[in-house]
């Protein structure tokens, strides 16, 4: 037996102790770097989580990054208005410099600070809801805005899928408040999803990340230094740090005939009809009894899916400071409905408002009398519509601030 056969390559050139020491030290250093990064704001010139810094381009902001961003931007002595919800409140179709939240800020004045955490495709409790809950400890005078969206779907406390990661990220890191009914619902969901491998994997990842901070570190590096994740939107320049990308929303200037293309007309009218059906058959419908849980489950405690969704999504103290604008769709499509369908569509808003207000949430109907030009497509408001929404929301927010005792005695603005 030769000397080389006795001592293979790795034994001749590598020292095992040094190798393992290097692995442990560098892995530990990465965890520490992730922890440090998560407690520092990495976002510059933040207006909203635009395409290049949201999940559309595989950029997943973490719960701690959002908290650090808010801490860097917001003054705890001011009344903080956190905007969550879907692409409608995100401002799809509005340029950053003409974004409705900027208009809202100027209307509310210096006593208030508005921050836009709405996300395309997010449902009422998703992302922004968890973000507002995280911030409520640091900002006691907080008002949260979220919209149930055109689909008026009612997800579970952790959302419907795309933004579930954010809830479990915040939950695993202990950033959410304890709410017994929500805990019970999460326990039910754990049983219902016991065969769901993706859900089990998500929870494991988030539990690991709460100790190892790998998502915080590499997301920060993607934003500040160099990105490593390819997606169709970033193409060949995928290594460019995300902080160098500008907000790409360019739909604002489309002429009316391009906002409402004839080829998509039928599908959009059907989508409006779908909203009526969905609300009647799902969101506002009584919850059927669970076949195995009988009266022990959460089903019997709530009158509708929407009520259960909002009550479990927002612990009791958050409800009275959560304002829900119920936004209409463009009259371009609503006016194409038959008269009985239009009546049903218009009746949807008071019915939804009734459920939400019974559950303790202030609501406001937006867009019933808006012209076609106030929309940039079926559901999204144009810059003109966004400005009108801000004008309608500002007095309501001031009224809420007054009612919640956020303003000094006798101060109404």
């Amino acid at each position, binding site marked *: 037996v030769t000397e080389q056969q006795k001592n293979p390559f790795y034994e001749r050139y590598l020292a095992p102790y040094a190798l393992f*020491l290097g692995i442990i030290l560098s892995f530990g250093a*990465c965890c520490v770097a*992730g922890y440090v990064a998560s407690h520092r704001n990495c976002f510059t010139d933040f207006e909203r989580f635009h395409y290049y810094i949201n999940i559309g381009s595989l950029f997943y902001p973490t719960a701690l990054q959002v908290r650090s961003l808010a801490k860097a931007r917001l003054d705890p002595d001011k009344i903080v208005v956190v905007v969550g919800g879907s692409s409608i409140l995100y401002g799809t179709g509005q340029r950053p410099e003409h974004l409705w939240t900027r208009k809202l800020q100027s209307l509310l004045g210096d006593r208030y600070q508005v921050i836009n955490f709405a996300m395309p495709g997010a449902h009422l409790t998703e992302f922004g809801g968890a973000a507002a809950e995280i911030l409520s400890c640091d900002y006691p005078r907080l008002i949260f805005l979220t919209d149930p969206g055109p689909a008026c779907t009612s997800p579970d406390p952790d959302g419907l899928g795309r933004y579930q990661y954010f809830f479990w990220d915040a939950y695993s890191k202990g950033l959410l408040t304890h709410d017994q009914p929500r805990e019970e619902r999460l326990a039910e969901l754990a049983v219902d999803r016991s065969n769901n491998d993706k859900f089990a994997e998500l929870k494991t990842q988030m539990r690991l*990340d709460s100790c190892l901070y790998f*998502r915080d570190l*590499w997301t920060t590096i993607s934003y500040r230094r160099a990105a490593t994740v390819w997606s169709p939107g970033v193409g060949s320049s995928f290594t460019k740090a995300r902080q160098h990308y500008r907000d790409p929303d360019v739909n604002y200037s489309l002429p009316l005939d391009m906002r409402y293309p004839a080829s998509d007309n039928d599908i959009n009218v059907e989508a409006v009809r779908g909203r009526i059906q969905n609300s009647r058959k799902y969101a506002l419908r009584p919850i059927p009894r669970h076949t195995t849980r009988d009266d022990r489950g959460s089903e019997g405690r709530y009158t509708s899916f929407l009520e259960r969704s909002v009550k479990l999504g927002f612990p009791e103290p958050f409800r009275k400071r959560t304002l829900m604008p119920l936004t209409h769709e463009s009259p371009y499509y609503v006016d194409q409905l038959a008269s009985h369908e239009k009546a049903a569509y218009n009746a949807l808003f008071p019915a939804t408002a009734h459920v939400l207000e019974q559950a303790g949430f202030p609501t406001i109907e937006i867009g019933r009398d808006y012209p076609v030009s106030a929309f940039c497509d079926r*559901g999204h408001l144009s810059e003109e519509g966004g400005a009108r929404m801000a004008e309608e929301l500002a007095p309501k927010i001031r009224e809420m601030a007054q009612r919640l005792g956020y303003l000094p005695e006798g101060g109404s603005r």
Partner: protein
Amino acid sequence: MRMVRFLVSFLLGCLIGLLFHYVLYRMSLPVEPFIYMTF
């Protein structure tokens, strides 16, 4: 020679540790991005 062997092993270990941390991050991302549609 022993020092070089230690240094090479240590640097390789550092690289593996870094890679392992990065792999955990990549595993937390979905394979396909979410494409937002208005209808």
